[in-house]
């Protein structure tokens, strides 16, 4: 940015007349080296943002577009020159002159180990992309054998709207953050226990209908592994009828109140099987309430009069 540009932006900021659009702080461009290429990214961007801007694929599980990074899964690590340890690309902000490598032996080895450790203890079968990454990094979760400790446990089914299958939970905290101060502010769930016994729980471990849960399903929307799942999806998976290749996604507008939330209807065989909302829409940022998320039964054709 030139001196002239900065001066112009400063003038705008001290102007007290009504502003037509919000004026944020001006962002400088930062030059970094990514896999041998020099690129410019806005100040404050993360290494992951920089990778995405260049089309460099980086695997992530705990990262959510609408949530602050928690650095829990360590799958997105990259190598930064002069950094002793690998750094999580989802949270590390770019600095001028930073030299980043996303595909070194050290990075690949680390990602492979993360996938194997997670895969040996958690059921990742409902996590999109994981199977592909396993192949890409040559990860073999079975190599730890039968003695590997797992989080396997029965599915918690205590209501008709969504289930909690903690055999699939990688403790990424996304549901806790979405339910808590980052979006829903209901604070119905948090992490309880320590070490390997750490788990996501309602207050005092009560069932959902006794908890502070308001069934907005904003936790389901951010869950990367299917540990939180629509009951419709869970039931169809049990029956073996869940088939994402036969599903369509259609964006429409919620039929209830006047806020106008965009609903992405996931349909299979002319039935709505799941509802999400686009993460990048200015109205919802991917969030819905119980009516938008679960209020579609009245048009399910097997239920219509």
């Amino acid at each position, binding site marked *: 940015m030139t001196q002239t540009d900065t001066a112009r932006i400063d003038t705008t900021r001290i102007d007290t*007349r*009504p*502003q*037509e*659009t*919000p004026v944020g702080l001006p962002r400088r461009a930062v030059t970094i080296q990514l896999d041998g290429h020099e690129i410019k990214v806005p100040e404050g961007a993360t290494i992951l943002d920089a990778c995405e801007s260049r089309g460099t694929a980086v695997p992530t599980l705990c990262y959510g577009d609408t949530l602050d990074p928690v650095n829990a899964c360590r799958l997105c690590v990259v190598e930064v020159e002069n950094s002793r340890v690998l750094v999580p690309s989802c949270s590390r902000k770019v600095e001028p002159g930073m030299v980043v490598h996303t595909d070194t032996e050290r990075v690949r080895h680390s990602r492979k180990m993360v996938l194997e450790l997670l895969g040996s203890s958690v059921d990742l079968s409902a996590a999109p992309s994981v199977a592909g990454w396993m192949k890409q990094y040559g990860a073999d979760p079975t190599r730890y054998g039968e003695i590997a400790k797992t989080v396997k446990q029965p599915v918690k089914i*205590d*209501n*008709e*709207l969504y289930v909690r299958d903690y055999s699939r939970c990688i403790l990424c905290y996304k549901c806790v953050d979405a339910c808590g*101060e980052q*979006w*829903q*502010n209901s604070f119905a769930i948090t992490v309880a226990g320590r070490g390997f016994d750490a788990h996501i729980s309602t207050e005092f471990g009560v069932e*959902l*209908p006794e908890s502070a849960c*308001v*069934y907005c399903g904003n936790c389901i929307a951010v869950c990367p592994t299917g540990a939180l799942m629509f009951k419709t999806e869970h039931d169809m998976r049990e029956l073996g009828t869940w088939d994402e290749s036969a599903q*369509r996604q*259609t*964006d*429409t*507008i*919620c*039929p*209830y*109140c*006047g*806020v*106008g*939330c*965009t609903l992405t*209807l996931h*349909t299979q065989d*002319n*039935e*709505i099987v799941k509802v999400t909302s*686009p993460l*990048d*829409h*200015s*109205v*919802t*940022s991917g*969030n*819905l*309430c*119980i*009516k*938008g998320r*679960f*209020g*579609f*039964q*009245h*048009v399910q*054709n097997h*239920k*219509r*009069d």
Partner: protein
Amino acid sequence: MVGLATVFGAGGGTSSYREIEDTDVIVLWGSNARVAHPIFFHHILTGIRNGAKLFVVDPRRTSSARWADRWLGLQVGTDIALAHAIGREIIAAGLHNRAFVEGSTTGFDEYRAAVEQWTLERAEAVTGVPADAIRELAHAFATADRAQMCWTLGITEHHNGVDNVLSLINLNLLCGHVGRYGAGINPLRGQNNVQGGGDMGAIPNKLPGFQDLLDDDARQKFEISWGCTIAPRHGWHLTEMFEAMDRKEMRALYVIGENPAQSEADSTHAIQILEGLEHMVVQDIFLTKTAKLADVVLPATAAWCESEGTVTNSERRVQRCRKAIDAPAGTRDDTDILIELARRLGHEWHYPDVESIWNELRSLSPMHAGMSYARLVDLGGIQWPCPSNDTLEPPFLHGRLWAQDPRDRGRLAPLSAVAWEGPVDLLSNDFPIRLTTGRRLDSYNTGVQSSAIASPMRDGETLDINPDDAMRLGIEEGERVRITSRRGSIEAPARFDLDLRPGLAFMTFHFPDEVDVNVLTIEANDPKSGTAEFKASAIRIEKLNGAVGAVGAVGAVDVAVDVAVPVAGD
């Protein structure tokens, strides 16, 4: 919508949701957005976390009020008294925006005279809100760089709902909190296309795009396009139609996607009127209670997921609805039904698809001209006005009021010297308890769409009352009680709720097949908008096993206030 149109000429909220996140003071008045508009409340929560102060004005200590810096728990129907006291305090403290008031508004002297009697002390006596809290809101609102005023049906569902709205708009005008980013006035629409209905001219005095029906040029434009003549007179709004049906002046009714047999106030009377019609047609996705009364039922597809079209939300954003599933056999899209009906009546309407209907609107309504289907998809919806195919307008309305040159400011915004009147349905010894109505999180209106949600939070209809009232009446939690107003009587289980003060009761109208709450509500309508006073009925509560102890739970202030109010007709 009527109030905003009166002041600004356009019946729409002036700000965008995003602006709430960047404001300094938020006033949520007669709105439990946490429950009724949960995703809008997300924007408020972001605003709070960014440092905004929240004031909630509501007779109930709602779940929205739990997030407030201050809750102002006013008596039902005393909104104008409170708003005027705030206005008076702002003026008395010299905190109003003199430059804006002088340059961009009219009627300041009349307004100042109207609010003069509303001292903090008098307001406290009438509204029940402590003077300190009124002063705090007034000062915070007036000294904020940016402030947002938001309301919902707690303001509009009164016999003087439009005056209520005008009294709130006054406060924004007084402080210059309109027409700037982050400062504005936001009515939250209760239904997904209430705004769109108004936009499309489904109101008795406007053509699509809020063009006045009495404007010869506007009418002629539509007449040329439609090849017909349009009568230069305003039609009836819903309430006027019911009155016309009652006196047999209107004898046939065509109802599309509405359930008046259960949603109208004083539903017993409403059903009598509908039954007295010579002919009624109902077009709906379900065989509603209204449809059961009809001579002809036209089964329609569900507009939001079985057909194509657009809706407009509370921030004036026009968005696309799309067909995701096939509708049941025998149903047809609303547009198909209307086109076919027109054909049978001798008019051939040629629309190859819904987009061509939309494009016709764009050619006739300047505020929609730039909204092609392609742009609506690319931009995630577009807020009106959007006259240009290439550019977008600012996210807020009425920036013109801030123009340097007075000639660019257009029609100045009038302050409204409205007078306060309490609720029509007076409290008395026979009807000592004030009943107000509202929504719960997991249900919606008469339950036609929401009753199928398997919500673990749902208890069915209850009469929510303060435990002190219940104790006085000898009622236990969960006990079925009789609730009687001057219009009718129903039964429901009692539920204790500490968010209600003694003398105040709450019910919804989500479960009309089990408990028809609108048997109780009063058909006292706002003369300007036709909205009924759902929010203020006088009731008594009795034990089912005997009528003893029915009276006594009287909020003394409430009665004193109500009795003092002169009311025309009852």
